[in-house]
C-alpha cells in the first residue's frame, strides 16, 4: 500500500532535483518580496519590525499559492495523472505524497530561511522561534489546502486566477494564527495557544484535504 506513496514521493523529488530552478525560484521570490517591502513602505527598523510578522506570513501564502498551481499541471498534460487515478494504489496516499513533495520543495526552504528574512525585516528576537515553528506547520497546511484548489482547476485552461480566488478564503485561518503567534511572542505573551491551533489545523487538513483533492482529481479527469 505504501509502495505508491514512496514511488511518487521519490519521483517528484527526483524531478525537482533534476530541475534545480524549480527549487531555487521560490527562494529567490522570497528575497525579492522582502526587498520590495522597505522600498515601498519604509526602511525604518522600528516600523518594519511592527509589520514583519504579517508580511512574512502573507509572503508564505503568496509563495504557496504561486507554486501550488503547478502541482498537478505537468502530470495532467502528459497523462500521468490519469494513470494515477486508474491505478490500484490508493489515490489518497499518492496525492499525499505529491503534497509532501511540494511542501519539501517550497514550504520547508521558506521555513528554514525565515530567520534570515525576519532579520532583514528587523523582527525582534523573541519572534524567531514562533515564526519558524508556525511556518513549519503552517506551510504544510497551505500545501494541503492549495492542493484541493489545484485539483479542482487542473483541467481548466486558465486556472491560475481562479485557483487563488478559491483557495485564498481557505488560507485565512492559517494567516491569522501564524501571524498572531509571532506577534504575541514579540509582545511577551505565551504562544502555546496559536501554535496548538495551528497543529490542530495541520492534523485536520492532513486527514481531510488529500481526500478532497482525490475527489477533485477524479472530477477533473472524468468530467
Amino acid at each position, binding site marked *: 500500500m505504501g509502495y505508491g506513496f514512496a514511488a511518487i514521493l521519490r519521483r517528484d523529488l527526483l524531478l525537482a532535483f533534476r530541475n534545480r530552478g524549480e527549487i531555487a525560484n521560490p527562494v529567490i521570490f522570497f528575497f525579492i518580496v522582502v526587498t520590495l517591502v522597505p522600498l515601498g513602505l519604509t526602511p525604518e527598523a522600528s516600523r518594519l519590525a511592527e509589520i514583519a510578522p504579517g508580511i512574512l506570513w502573507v509572503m508564505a501564502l503568496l509563495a504557496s499559492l504561486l507554486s501550488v498551481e503547478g502541482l498537478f499541471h505537468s502530470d495532467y498534460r502528459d497523462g500521468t495523472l490519469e494513470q494515477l487515478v486508474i491505478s490500484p494504489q490508493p489515490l489518497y496516499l499518492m496525492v499525499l505524497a505529491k503534497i509532501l513533495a511540494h511542501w519539501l520543495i517550497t514550504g520547508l526552504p521558506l521555513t528554514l530561511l525565515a530567520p534570515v528574512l525576519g532579520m532583514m525585516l528587523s523582527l525582534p528576537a523573541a519572534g524567531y522561534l514562533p515564526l519558524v515553528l508556525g511556518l513549519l506547520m503552517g506551510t504544510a497546511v497551505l500545501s494541503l489546502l492549495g492542493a*484541493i484548489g489545484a485539483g*479542482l*482547476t487542473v*483541467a*481548466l485552461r*486558465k*486556472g491560475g486566477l*481562479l485557483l487563488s*480566488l*478559491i483557495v*485564498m*478564503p*481557505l488560507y*485565512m*485561518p492559517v494567516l*491569522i*494564527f501564524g501571524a*498572531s503567534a509571532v*506577534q*504575541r511572542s514579540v509582545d511577551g505573551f505565551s504562544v502555546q495557544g496559536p501554535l496548538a*491551533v495551528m497543529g490542530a*489545523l495541520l492534523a485536520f487538513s492532513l486527514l*481531510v484535504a488529500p481526500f*478532497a483533492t482525490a*475527489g*477533485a482529481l477524479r*472530477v*477533473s479527469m*472524468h*468530467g
Partner: protein
Amino acid sequence: MWQWFHRLGSPRWFYQTSGKWLPWLAGITFVLLLVGLVWGLGFAPRDAKQGNSFRIIYIHVPASFLALAGYYVMAIAGAVGLIWKMKLADMVMKSAAPLGAALTFVALVTGAIWGKPTWGTYWVWDARITSMLVLLFLYMGVMALQHSYTSVDAANKASAVLSLVGMVNIPIIYKSVDWWYTLHQPATIKFTEAPTMHPDMFHPLLVMIVGFYCFYALVLILNTRSEILHRERRSSWVKDVVLQNQR
C-alpha cells in the same frame, strides 16, 4: 419508503409540483414582507440611542441569516448531488450560489450603511463583518468554478466539492476571525446592541425573518425551475411546456 426521495430526484416531477406551490408561496411571501416592512419601518418605536437609523435592522438581520443558511443549503444540495447523483440537487446547488452571494452582499451593504450613523464609518474590521466578507469570497469562488467548466457534469461535481470544503471551513474561519478580533485592540467604536430587544421592535423583525426565509425559498424554486428548463431543453416534456405557454 424511499419512493418520495427518488421522485424528488426527477426534475420533471419537481417542475410540475412546484408550479402548484408557487402562487401560494408567492402570496405568503408578499404578505409577510409587506406586513413586516410597514410594521417595522412605520410603526415600531424609535430606538432611544440610534433614532430611526436602527430600522435598517429589518433588512440587515434577515439578509445575514439567509446568507449563512444559504451556504448550507448550497453545500448540502451539492453533497446530495455527489452522493446520490441526483440531477435536481445539482440544479438547486447551482441556483443557490448567486442567490446566497446576493444576500451576503445585501447584508454587507446594509451593514455599511447602518455603520455610518452608528459608528461614524462605513467599514470597520470587525469580526462579524470580516467573516461575512470571507463568506462572499467563498460564494464567488463556487460561482467562478461553476462557470469555468464547459461540461455541466464536471462543473456540478467540482463546485459541489468546493462548497463542501467551504462548509467544513466556515466554522473554522468564523472562529479564527473571532479570535483574531479579540487579539487586536478593538477600535473605539464598538457595536453595543441592546441586551434585550423590546417586543415592539422584535415582533416585526421576526415577521421579516420568516418573510425572508419564504422569499429565499421562492427565488430558489424560481431559479431552479429556469435551470431545469434550460438543462432539459431537449426533452419532450419541456417542449410541451414551452408550446403550451406560447399558445
